[in-house]
């Protein structure tokens, strides 16, 4: 039986394919993937899914391993082993407010802050840990728009370069967390087909260490 790996579309795709190739696990290029969502090659099955779905594929055993951003694991905790920090895809989850807003450090926040985000779990955890009240509005995209039209006082969103925030006249007031790509594994696969899987994990971890 082959080892199956779930990787995700979007910003991590290139890094994921590059890592699989560098570790000698599977040689695939983006063109080859094209519109195909499932490829079997060299005894490895690669499935291409949306970032938010990688954890589900791995947790339920449809994939043995997964390459996914830590930001997605904040929203889908438990159910899998998080084995290796793969280093690429670095970004930060930040809280940002409009440049014109008077909000800065926590002492300036109103008692209950209204926050728009695609990351409700991580956001709730952040405010709870700081003992601050927040009404969280869950959005699925264009979060930057929310404060400009009065939907929220602030946003919590992912940023790599800060350009999108700047373009939308938003200013960072707090860092909620830092994220990189992670290698996750199904709990039972790691037990029932331990040797097979550990071999692949080891090759990936070594490729990361070599850089």
């Amino acid at each position: 039986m082959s080892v199956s790996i779930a990787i995700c579309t979007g910003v991590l795709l290139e890094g994921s394919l590059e890592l699989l190739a560098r570790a000698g696990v599977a040689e695939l290029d983006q063109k080859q993937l094209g519109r195909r969502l499932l490829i079997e090659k060299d005894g490895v099955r690669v499935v291409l899914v949306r970032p938010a779905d990688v954890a589900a594929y791995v947790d339920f055993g449809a994939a043995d391993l997964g390459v996914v951003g830590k930001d997605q694991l904040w929203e889908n905790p438990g159910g899998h082993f998080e084995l290796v920090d793969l280093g690429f895809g670095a970004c930060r989850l930040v809280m940002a407010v409009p440049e014109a807003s008077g909000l800065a450090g926590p002492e300036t926040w109103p008692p209950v802050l209204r926050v728009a985000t695609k990351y409700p779990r991580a956001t709730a955890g952040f405010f709870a840990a700081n003992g601050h009240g927040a009404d969280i509005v869950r959005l699925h995209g264009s979060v930057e728009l929310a404060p400009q039209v009065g939907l929220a006082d602030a946003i919590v969103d992912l940023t790599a370069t800060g350009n999108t925030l700047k373009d939308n006249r938003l200013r960072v007031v707090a860092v909620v967390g830092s994220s990189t790509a992670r290698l996750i594994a199904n709990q039972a696969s790691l037990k029932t087909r331990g040797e097979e899987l550990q071999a692949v994990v080891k090759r990936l971890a070594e490729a990361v260490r070599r850089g």
Partner: protein
Amino acid sequence: MRGSSEAILAEMRRWGYRFVVTPTLESESVLSLGLGPDQRRRLFRFADADGSLLAVVGEKTVPVARLAAGRLRSARLPLRLCYAASVLANDGGRFSNRRETHQAGAELIGAAGPVADAEVIALAVRCLDAGGLRRYQVDVGHSEFFHGLLAGLRLDPEVEVGVKAALAARDFVALEQLLGATPLKSAEQELLLRFPALRGGREILDAASRLVSNRRSEKALDELARVHELLGLHGLAEVVSLDLGAIRDFDYYTGVTFEAFGPDLGRSLAAGGRYDGLLARFGRPAPATGFVVYLDLVAEAMARSGEAPVLPRIDAAVAWSGKGLKQAVRLASSLRLFGMRAVLDTEARSTADAAAWWKVIGATNLVHCSGAATTAWTSRRGKTRRLPPEQVVGQISGAVL
């Protein structure tokens, strides 16, 4: 599922475990004595007329422990108890939206040591066999191995809390960061980081004992070696592996733990271990070990492996026509008296109709009574013979056994 549940209970009885029925509702404060924060959160709670808080049981070990410490207080230890019941949770967790799941389990209360540990593991495996599973494996670990390592690292209390949380979340990236920030590097720290890979046969114990340097972990390794040897005597060497990196509820388990996995089913089918601390919370300190079989998952694993659920066997379908009813009733009773399963028809049928009805019932044999002294027996192979009624039971039991 009913079939596997019955077969599993029958296996437990063969090992001398007594079936107990425990309440579905308990005072919330009583249940909470034996549950971790996450399990407490998942309880269905409500208030009775007096305003006291009740909860529906979310697992059966606590009610069984309460029974052993309460109504069975005068019963002498060791007690071997088993149960099968549905349990409720207000949050099915990551893997399921089901509120209600079915569990069967056994608890051995009042027995310490590797022989008791091995008995419970062996029983769990035999229960999976009895339930109809053919492919599975069992990982045996020891919670004290981890506690020894952790104590040996002498971490700041804050870091220690973080290490426990990271392990509980199976987050080895966070674990590495936490341990990387501590000044001391040791072989034991390295062991903790290699947790997911500390799995194998007997040899893994020797490898680990060269790396640990604390009494608690060493003792755990000795116990595991003994349990492994005993499981060999139980004939389970083929299906048992040792997993020093087993991550279980470390605040609950106090010794040998185990989990059974089926193929292609991302989760464990059965799990258990030693919990010597629980009974004391109910006022009767005693060592104890036990396990639970997740019946829904066993059924799912069987369905996946393509083993169609086996319908209960029926030995004889007893049809009748004309004056044959009296004889048919009598024959069906005799068959049952001899331990066979017999279905009596509810209406008169001709010989041809009776054959069609026989197929619907799915019984092994057909008996057709058409008069007080005229009976026809059709065997599995379809051969029909006329027999005097008094010979039918003997013939069928000969054919069935």
